[in-house]
């Protein structure tokens, strides 16, 4: 579903250039989740931006569902995203129903309304509240709503950038369960970017450790947690509480 092939990304040119990613390769199959971990500056966010199609790689290629990611107005992308701060992902002026229904703009009105209600119920939000604005909801509820919005686009690939870091522990567990259920139902591939290894444990099939733009380790999640191969991975594990 997602192919990242020898991808490099460089900002600036000549001696001042910053290499954000260097020779990164991996694939994620439909229905599977790959977690990308690493500290700030490791290149996690850059990788996310390349896969979403916000930027182009300097070298190598990114393929989502067999084609380079493209942003087209009017049609929902095959890649949808859930970010750390849901309040920034939803328009404060639009009702949550309108935000969730936006990717369905081409559908008949009645069908759109029905689908929005379905999606809200799926993420555990009372569909009767579809007319309310984001300010009426808590952080955990907003994260559910932004997931509903991502699912409305029927993504083949879901990018989750720190989806739980801004949430309380009890709410984190709800979002983790929701992601597991949604993936089991829709079969999208998932790329999870986070520094929280406990969340990785709960969600990921494979773990990829990035450091300074390079892949330090890429393994099955069970193997990674049982015996991390790289020194750096062991450091990351030791730093997790």
């Amino acid at each position: 579903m997602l192919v990242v092939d020898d991808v490099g990304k460089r900002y600036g040119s000549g001696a001042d250039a910053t290499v954000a990613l260097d020779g990164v390769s991996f694939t994620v199959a439909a229905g599977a989740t790959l977690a990308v971990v690493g500290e700030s500056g490791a290149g996690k966010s850059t990788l996310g931006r390349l896969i979403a199609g916000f930027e182009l790689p300097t070298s190598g290629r990114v393929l989502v569902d067999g084609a380079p990611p493209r942003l087209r107005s009017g049609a929902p992308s095959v890649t949808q995203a859930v970010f750390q701060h849901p309040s920034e992902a939803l328009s404060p002026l639009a009702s949550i129903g309108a935000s969730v229904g936006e990717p369905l703009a081409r559908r008949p009105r009645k069908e759109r309304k029905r689908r929005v209600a379905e999606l809200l119920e799926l993420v555990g939000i009372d569909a009767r509240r579809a007319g309310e604005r984001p300010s009426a909801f808590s952080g955990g509820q907003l994260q559910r709503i932004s997931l509903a919005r991502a699912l409305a686009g029927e993504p083949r690939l879901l990018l989750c950038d720190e989806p739980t870091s801004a949430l309380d522990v009890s709410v984190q567990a709800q979002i983790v369960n929701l992601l597991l259920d949604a993936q089991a139902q829709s079969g999208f591939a998932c790329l999870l970017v986070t520094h929280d290894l406990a969340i990785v444990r709960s969600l990921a099939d494979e773990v990829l450790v990035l450091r300074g733009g390079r892949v330090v380790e890429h393994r099955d999640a069970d193997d990674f947690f049982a015996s991390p191969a790289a020194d750096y991975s062991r450091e990351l594990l030791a730093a997790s509480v």
Partner: protein
Amino acid sequence: MSGETALALHDVRVTRGCGDGRLELVHGIDLAVAAGAVCGVVGETGAGKTLTMRAVLGLLPRGLESSGAIELGGQRVDLATPAIARRALLGRELALVPQNPAAMLDPVVRVGDQLVEGVVRRRMSTPAEARSRALELLSQVGFRDPERIVRLHPHQLSGGMSQRVGIAMALVPRPRVLIVDEPTSALDAHLRIEILSLIRTIARAERTAVVLVSHDLGLVARFCDTVAVLYAGTIVESGPAAAVIERPRHPYAVALRAVAPRLTATRRARLTTIPGVPPTPDSIGAGCPFAPRCPRVEPLCRELRPALAGPPQQPAACHVVNRAARSRAPRSTGEAHAGRR
């Protein structure tokens, strides 16, 4: 962790509004922190952790009022007095490391000048003394070249660097109590560990009492000596951190521990969740605020608000667990009492 109490809270309350519209947000917090010890205050969003600490600091937002008292190194301070009257304590006896220290730094003043400004203006030390204290603290918080750091402006610092500068700044006046609010929620895991280790080391060395406000149980388990668990504006359980985290008594503390994602979990297994949502201040009835979500709820819980009770080293505000504890081991609890006296 032994030693004199550096900070004690007595029946600290925070209210909003007046007359019929009066609403209590924090319902009488009692807490003691020993000099050199780290006390964790854990709870979820809206539990009242930050409000309680802001009441202590005299930094409540407009429209909120505090009552109760604090004891700060033997000095009793009434929290019902206007906060402005207590302002002298702030930055001298009490210091705060806010959630986002970068926002606290003045963008147009060099780091070094900001570090010493407070103590010099209050004539707590001479500029030269303050400067050497600041340099020493900067190297303690992990800067290898403090002389260079003091000449920088805040925009030249990374997130982790501003966090460390914020800690150094709070410590310059040698406060009796350091309040650290949701430290490092924006930081990488390893940086977070580094910064908290640092705070703990400095606290031990300088006999500073630290209150660590956090929603992260793992963090609290790792760095705190004692912990208080807050729910809906009350302490539901308190005691030694290891006991409260590993062998929690109150059903809410038990649930919090159960829902936390763990490294030892099975891959892609669903996590336990707490049903329902925390109550809003206006929806709390007469009974236990956790009753609507509690797996062990009984009719009494919905009628009578439980008080902190049970073993004095680990009291919990729960009718059910306290009754169970009493019936299970009345004698041994009595002996524990006797032993303490």
